[in-house]
């Protein structure tokens, strides 16, 4: 069986005829060549494949692509500014060395962005608890937590600026 799926990915309308077994992560990587969404464990544990579905973080390896029919999907490729400048959360990961091998980073950043939106004044304990859907095997999490705290602070600043501006 082939089904037609239509969705918006990083602001662009996409339609594809796919086997209903196709995972959202596969559609993004193999059909759309958006390989920033990483498949780590492929069992819904590690969070490397995290993308936003209508603004909420989800694991793209644990979602059938057809479940995203009609939805807005944002991947790591879709969060930078109009001129390619890093999202504040990405900039914070770079600034605070929140990665070593970098494999888990796209998922970490996508989860951290929703985390920062939901908890603009998150403390360290909240960040650690709310990141529990994302695994990193390199860093021991210390610099990731620092990066998320800094990124969240920068995000709330830019929200305030845009509200004022």
């Amino acid at each position: 069986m082939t089904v037609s799926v239509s969705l918006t990915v990083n602001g662009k309308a996409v339609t594809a005829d796919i086997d209903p077994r196709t995972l959202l992560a596969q559609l993004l990587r193999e059909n759309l060549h958006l390989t920033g969404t990483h498949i780590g464990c492929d069992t819904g544990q590690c969070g490397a494949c995290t993308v936003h579905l209508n603004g909420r973080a989800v694991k793209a390896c644990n979602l059938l692509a057809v479940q995203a029919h009609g939805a807005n999907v944002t991947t790591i490729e879709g969060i930078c500014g109009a001129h390619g400048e890093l999202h504040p959360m990405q900039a914070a990961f770079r600034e605070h060395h929140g990665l070593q091998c970098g494999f888990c980073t796209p998922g970490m950043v996508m989860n951290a962005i929703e985390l920062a939106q939901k908890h603009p004044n998150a403390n360290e304990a909240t960040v650690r608890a709310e990141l529990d859907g994302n695994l990193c095997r390199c860093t021991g999490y210390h610099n990731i937590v620092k990066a998320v705290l800094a990124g969240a602070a920068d995000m709330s600043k830019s929200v305030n600026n845009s509200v004022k501006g």
Partner: protein
Amino acid sequence: MHTFDYHRPATLKDAVALLKKTENARPLAGGQSLTPALKMRLAQTPALVDLGALEELRTIKLEAAVLTIGAGVRHSEVAESKDVKIGLPVLAKLAAHIGDRQVRNMGTLGGSLANNDPAADYPAAVLALSATIHTNRRSIPADKFFTGLYETALKPGEIITSVEFPLPKRAAYVKFKQPASRFALVGVFVSEGGGQVRVAVTGAANSVFRLKDMEKKLGEKFAPEAIAKVKVSADKLNSDLHAAADYRAHLISVLAQRAVGEALGGK
């Protein structure tokens, strides 16, 4: 995954008809348990009926003595809902700690109950609060709903539409999280309301169950010390690499006392 046909009905009526049309067709809610099971070929189905477009399953309604939550409401939506926070804050807190953020953003109340994972959180709430599960055919009291390991009273083709929670006088849920799976190693839900005390335990046996010895003691005196000496039998409890049965029995006792304390503290 084995192959399957896929349907995305727009109404409950169509979903029921599609489930009826193909033997062993399965409904798909958030898919946070079913999709991994299909991927690992622990489950297979000739047809998947996606309930994701059924807006009629996505309402939350708070009344004077009852909170009704649609089966399609996601865990994160329960956790963030003003009505749930006002009417049944214990349930908002429980939902906020299911799995991880990404799971909470997809998983639904109805999906969790229909799956009846032995370590899921919602079954403990439904059983302890004496909730009623409404389906497209009938209403099932919590005491009759959970029938065994991943087994429920649901018949083939029956879809949960909503869950009706009577609001308790006080209640609390305390769980000991298994850090790798983020499921409850043991979770205890205690509630007092409608003239009775109910204690439900998840994570410890093949399905959620009530501890009637504790309920009786708490009915006489609702205080942690009232159940400190209630012996919890390890007989029918799970033993696995995470915890032995006697350890789970010990956890039940400790967590139940903490839950009673928390319920009294009004947290």
